[in-house]
């Protein structure tokens, strides 16, 4: 504890911003109180902060905690998943005095964050999307993520009511479990409205490749899909291209309604501000930070965009009812009997996976009704 305090005092004397805080902040009297509340937090993004997507969602969360008293935020964007991120983290720790780091891209976890965490046992690292395991990974690390497949399920409900062709489309980056969960949830949500709906998925192979995303959207609309959603780092191109072709859009990561106000139905957004505020308040009070933090709509990790003009009154009712149900907790998006699109049973009759079920994090199938394959 003393070591943590002395490190904090040394660090915030180094960081000029925090130094200004010492003189300017009202109400912080004792130096012990100063050492507890002043905190430098580091954010690392794999892409640009204003991509209308994944990184922007995190940056918006960071912006929320910047406003909290005693918090200094240092951010770095476009950091690739190589030794670069290790050096960035070390630089933030050594030169900026950061004691809480949020590396936000999945590829930062292993080996990069784990390597640095082993070197700096007094610094706390929390990773977005990683699979922290007790005993296997160090105690000063952890991971957080949201059950955004709940959001995609709700997207699916809105899509189910809006589609006339009974075909919906999904532009996906890579067939990893987090993406597959979203594709499946989108279809299952739509099928809860009409069991004949099918969803076509096209994989672009990269997290961010504008031309491929535009081509994929066009191909989906050519094949008859009239509601499009996606899981790519920056949904901007998909939203604009899809809306331009006359399809309805369900957003993802952040709120893209300004790009297509008439065609935007709703969107599954991250609410990282809540997650970060929680972490930061605990850190300031020197409480232990959670190591495996997950949450969904109920916990405020995920939120839905306001419903757009394309949602019918009936659709709105169904949407809100399911949303209320999810807010109670324990809602199962994936429950049996469920088959994958090759005919195998993946969830047996009577079995249901609640949102926090760990098996979901290793999903490797596409459910029946999804047209496409994972490899």
């Amino acid at each position: 504890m003393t070591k943590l305090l002395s490190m904090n005092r040394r660090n915030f004397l180094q960081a000029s911003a925090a130094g200004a805080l010492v003189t300017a902040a009202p109400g912080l009297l004792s130096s012990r109180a100063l050492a507890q509340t002043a905190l430098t937090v580091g954010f690392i993004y794999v892409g640009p902060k204003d991509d209308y997507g994944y990184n922007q969602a995190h940056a918006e969360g960071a912006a929320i905690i910047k406003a909290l008293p005693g918090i200094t935020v240092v951010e770095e964007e476009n950091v690739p998943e190589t030794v670069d991120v290790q050096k960035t983290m070390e630089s933030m720790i050594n030169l900026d005095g950061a004691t809480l780091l949020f590396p936000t891209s999945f590829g930062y976890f292993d080996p990069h964050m784990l390597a640095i965490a082993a070197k700096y046992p007094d610094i706390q690292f929390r990773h977005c999307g990683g699979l922290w395991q007790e005993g296997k990974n160090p105690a000063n690390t952890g991971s957080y993520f949201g059950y955004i497949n709940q959001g995609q399920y709700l997207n699916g409900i809105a899509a189910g009511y809006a589609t006339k062709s009974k075909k919906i489309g999904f532009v996906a980056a890579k067939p990893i479990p987090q993406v597959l969960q979203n594709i499946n949830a989108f279809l299952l949500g739509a099928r809860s409205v009409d069991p004949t709906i099918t969803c076509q998925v096209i994989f672009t192979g990269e997290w961010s490749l504008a031309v491929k995303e535009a081509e994929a959207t066009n191909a989906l609309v050519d094949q008859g899909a009239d509601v499009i959603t996606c899981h790519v780092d920056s949904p901007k191109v998909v939203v604009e291209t899809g809306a331009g072709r006359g399809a309805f859009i369900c957003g993802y990561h952040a709120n893209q309604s300004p790009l297509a106000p008439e065609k935007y139905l709703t969107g599954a957004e991250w609410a990282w501000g809540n997650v970060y505020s929680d972490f930061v308040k605990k850190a300031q009070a020197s409480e232990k930070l959670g190591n495996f933090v997950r949450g969904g709509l109920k916990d405020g990790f995920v939120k839905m965009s306001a419903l757009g003009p394309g949602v019918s009154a009936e659709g709105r009712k169904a949407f809100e009812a399911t949303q209320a149900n999810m807010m109670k907790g324990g809602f199962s998006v994936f429950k049996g009997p469920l088959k994958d699109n090759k005919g195998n049973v993946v969830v047996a009759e009577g079995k249901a996976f609640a949102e926090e079920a760990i098996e979901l994090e290793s999903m490797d199938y596409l459910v029946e009704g999804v047209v496409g394959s994972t490899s």
Partner: protein
Amino acid sequence: MEDSGIGLWGVPLAILAGAIRVSTPFIFVSLGETITERSGRINLGLEGTLVFGAMTAYAVAVMTNSPWLGVLAAMATGAAFGLIHGWICKWPKVNDIAIGIAMMQFGLGLAFFLGKSFIQPAAPHLPAIPLGFWSDMPQIQAALNINVLFIIGAVLAFVLRWAFKNTRVGLILRVVGDSTDAARAMGINPDLVRLLATAVGGSLAAIGGAYLSLYYPGSWNEGISSGQGLMAVALVIFARWNPIGCFLAALLFGGAGALGPALQSVGVSQGYYLFYAAPYVLTLVIMIATSSPTRSLSGAPGALSLTK
């Protein structure tokens, strides 16, 4: 269940639509590079010019709400990049292939730097002419929704071919490209001609970039180009410095680029990465098939330092 999809017909239609959509930047960059190379200079920096043109067009379009002003601004910056390249390369001992690579890195860096604040805003798009109005099917209408720039590019290809053969300017260009000494003997200043040719080439390449950011995919971000500038240089060689050949080769490329997503949409999704590599494999195969170690490539401008 209403079937509004078009099944397997989706693939050739997507290839056609893709050929039109995706080829436009290739058309402009390859036509620009044809002019430059016909004068005896190679400009490998067009990738940087393309991306910078994309950024400029988008930024100006956002600020002035006119996509055409964006295109004009892009042309100006493209010409500027071409002038820099042309001026530096005229000095002796300067390796113009290396300068091209350097300009590419510089152009990309500068574009990303200045374009940071334009990733979020939405810019007005360039207009398209709905040439598919005769069809009831939305897919055909969408496929034949042809952008004005594509038409300009096609016309430009024919104009350039005619101009190379029949105008004085075309003759001067070709003489300078074939032999620096012969040009000097005729009283032409080869450096000036090459400088202007590189500037015009850069300007056209920037139009190609403007198309990317203002029409398809219609957005500015750092991943907007996937090497179109460099592949277009290869296209020029494949097309034997013939503008019509460039146009056709660009269409071929656009089609190859649309193959991956189109096949996935009809269910062929095994090994989709390999389909995404199709344009590059195609370029390489074509280059191998049409090159020869002994004879210099027929139609190659004599002063070009390509395989010296």
